[in-house]
């Protein structure tokens, strides 16, 4: 804007003044430094928070339910923008009827698919086909609460999720969690950022 250019020209002073740093600082009113610092802080925070809200965020894993894929304390990048859950993805979701904090699980089946779990062989069948699951920590045992949710057809718009550490995971097999609405998903875990020793693309 012309007004802005005029403002810049007038505050710059003469060429001799501009070349003298002390002289230029003397033209700025008191409180300017505080204002500049607060402005920078506010801008950085606003951008970060808006990016975290709409695009992606960093979430720290709590608990052992996704071992050995994710460990307690791992900071992972979670992508939210335009994401639709797919089978096999590691997702972060919140089911508020279960708990207020979010949980990290793997999508085993999406809407319309059938899930059958054979605890005798520790195999999960989706639409009758056995899943190849190299990510599980150990052979799956029957949970303490029994079979829980099993032999079900996942409704449209919903997901069946399980943790990779099958014997220490509260997931869709557990009735208080059960089938999860896809709208409860915050985003997909894309990679583990740190600790650097655990860095991996998921």
């Amino acid at each position, binding site marked *: 804007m012309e*007004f*802005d250019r*005029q*403002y810049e020209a*007038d*505050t710059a*002073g*003469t060429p001799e003044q501009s070349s003298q740093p002390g002289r230029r600082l003397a*033209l*700025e*009113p*008191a*409180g*300017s430094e*505080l*204002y*500049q610092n*607060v*402005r920078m*802080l*506010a801008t950085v*925070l*606003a951008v970060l*928070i*808006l990016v*975290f*809200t*709409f695009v992606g*965020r960093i979430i720290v894993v*709590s608990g052992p339910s996704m071992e050995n894929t994710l460990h307690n304390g791992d900071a992972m990048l979670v992508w939210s923008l335009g994401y639709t859950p797919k089978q096999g993805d590691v997702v972060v*979701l*919140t*089911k*508020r*009827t279960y708990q*207020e*904090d*979010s949980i990290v699980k793997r999508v085993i089946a999406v809407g319309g698919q059938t899930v059958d779990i054979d605890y005798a062989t520790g195999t999960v069948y989706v639409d009758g086909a056995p899943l190849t699951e190299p990510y599980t920590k150990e052979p799956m045992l029957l949970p303490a609460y029994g079979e829980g949710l099993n032999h079900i057809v996942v409704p449209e718009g919903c997901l069946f999720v399980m943790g990779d550490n099958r014997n220490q995971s509260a997931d869709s097999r557990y009735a208080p969690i059960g089938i999860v*609405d896809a*709208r*409860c*998903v*915050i985003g997909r875990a894309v990679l583990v950022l740190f600790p650097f020793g655990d860095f991996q693309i998921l």
Partner: protein
Amino acid sequence: MNRQDTASRWGWLVCSAVLAGGAVWLRRWQIDTAFEGDLNLPVAGAPATICLLCLMAIAAALLGILAMVQREAPLPRHLHRQGRRDLTQATGSGLHLALTLVAAALLLAAAPMLLQEGAGLWQAFRLSADKTGNNGILVILTGLSSVLAFVGVLVAGVAVFRGKQGGRSAMVMAAVNGCAWMMESYRGHAANPVQWDYVPLLLAVVLGMLLYLEWAALSVGKPRPRLLLWLAGMTIVFSAMAAAAHTTLSGNLMLAAQSVCAVAVLWYVPVNLANPPQQEEPEELEEQPEELEEHTEQPEQPAAQEPVEEMEPEADLQATKRWER
């Protein structure tokens, strides 16, 4: 002040009020119809949500157009270095003082509620076994910065009322409160998959924070009056939208405070922008006549040079003024 300038003030206020009213109505409609189930999950393609999104876009565009067509009188060159304090000039205005006191009081009233809430969260966090969840630190920080904002708004408002040049940059402290509040709003809803539960409040907080910063920029930064007006209108609209949902009382108080500040901006800035108030020349220029008198004493001695002497003081004065610029 002519009728056109007064009309521009009312144009801003009426436009913002109408948009805010529409936002409140649509938000209430959305809450009643666009969420379902125990988890309150959003219904895809709900008419209320679509209408609300359209209103947000219309508000941004309409207020932007108002800002672009806002009449702006050229400012005298020698006042440029002082920023644009003149835009918020309201010396002796009882209305401005009242608005300032109300905004400051609202900020102060929010502080004890926030501190109490933060203390409760901290207690619960300390007693919890797994040490997860909200520890309340950000809530306490927001409460403390709310007191800071109270001081900042009060100092800035009193400075305007008394016609003082200094003190107006204290509005920066209100922006600091906005930073803390922004972080606390996000932290409280970081695990919430339903963005509509917290995005209107987050946007209202961000807009209010930017409004305080641009207000302070009139004194200590790069003044952008049109952006200031736009932010004031948007703050009123989004604050109303956020308050229409089930926010906490402390949150509503802070939303009300920033709305009152926005109303003050819309009341004074459009008129002052079109009619810069009469200002005295700054003190540094007032000192020059004494220095010039000392210089003019010297050439008076040689009588033969009198015709030239009469011109020299003016030439010296003009040269000095050019140097000062």
